[in-house]
């Protein structure tokens, strides 16, 4: 099935306030797109985790927010990109509970469990890109 991108917008994440801004925009779009309260909370919370990571760990970056459709379903796709230090051991991070800031370490692994599709591309020195897609259901 081909994926159709129906709209696309990009937002910078260079200050902490941008994390909150991205979250608000994702929430608004999810609601417009017909996500129920559970799916909206899931996508918005995931956006919050990834935006915060781009800011805290990646030293800033940007978020692309897209309305997508595949003929059967309507969804939202989010791309977070930073040019920070990257992640050395992605497997360890995705197992959950590992944090270099002595935080909970559940941001990436938790987000993966909130969305339908999750892709991460990161290696030391090259920065990090995370792409997640969620369709209109929890």
């Amino acid at each position, binding site marked *: 099935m081909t994926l159709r991108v129906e709209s696309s917008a990009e937002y910078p994440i260079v200050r902490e306030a941008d994390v909150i801004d991205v979250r608000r925009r994702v*929430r608004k779009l999810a609601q417009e797109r017909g996500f129920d*309260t*559970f799916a909206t*909370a*899931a996508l*918005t919370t995931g956006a*919050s985790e990834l935006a915060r990571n781009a800011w805290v760990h990646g030293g800033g970056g940007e978020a692309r927010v897209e309305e997508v459709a595949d003929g059967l379903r309507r969804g939202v796709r989010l791309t977070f990109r930073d040019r920070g230090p990257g992640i050395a051991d992605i497997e360890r991070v995705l197992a959950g509970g590992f944090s270099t800031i002595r935080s909970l370490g*559940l941001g990436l692994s938790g987000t993966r*469990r909130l969305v339908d599709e999750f892709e991460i591309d990161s290696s030391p020195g090259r920065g990090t890109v995370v792409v997640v897609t969620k369709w209109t259901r929890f």
Partner: protein
Amino acid sequence: MRGAIPILRVGPNLLTTVHVELDDNIADAFQQDVLQAIERTGAKGLVIDISSLDEVDTYVARVLADTGRMAGLMGARTVLVGMRPEVAATLVRMGYAMEGVETALDVDDGIALLAVRRSVAGAKDTA
């Protein structure tokens, strides 16, 4: 940022309603305000109402749990109230059930829970 989140005295407890999105600055100020209010009033309990929060990510969840831990070190008991269904579902799905944090449905239940803890203690005291 101090004072951004109101803290009210309700009988022997403090009640605070988190109605703004927490960032690092507001979170720090919130914790400092709460702890100094406990010291100033001698409050034995703290009710944190999050019924206004549409989402709680792991950062905010941790700030809330830490606030309860800080209050606990000072000797005040914390109850988190009003968590929405979709927030509870999202947090548990992410793997963080906020273990160790006491919860109640709403502010009234939270205050009742704190009173029960105190009266049970009191009854046993005079028994």
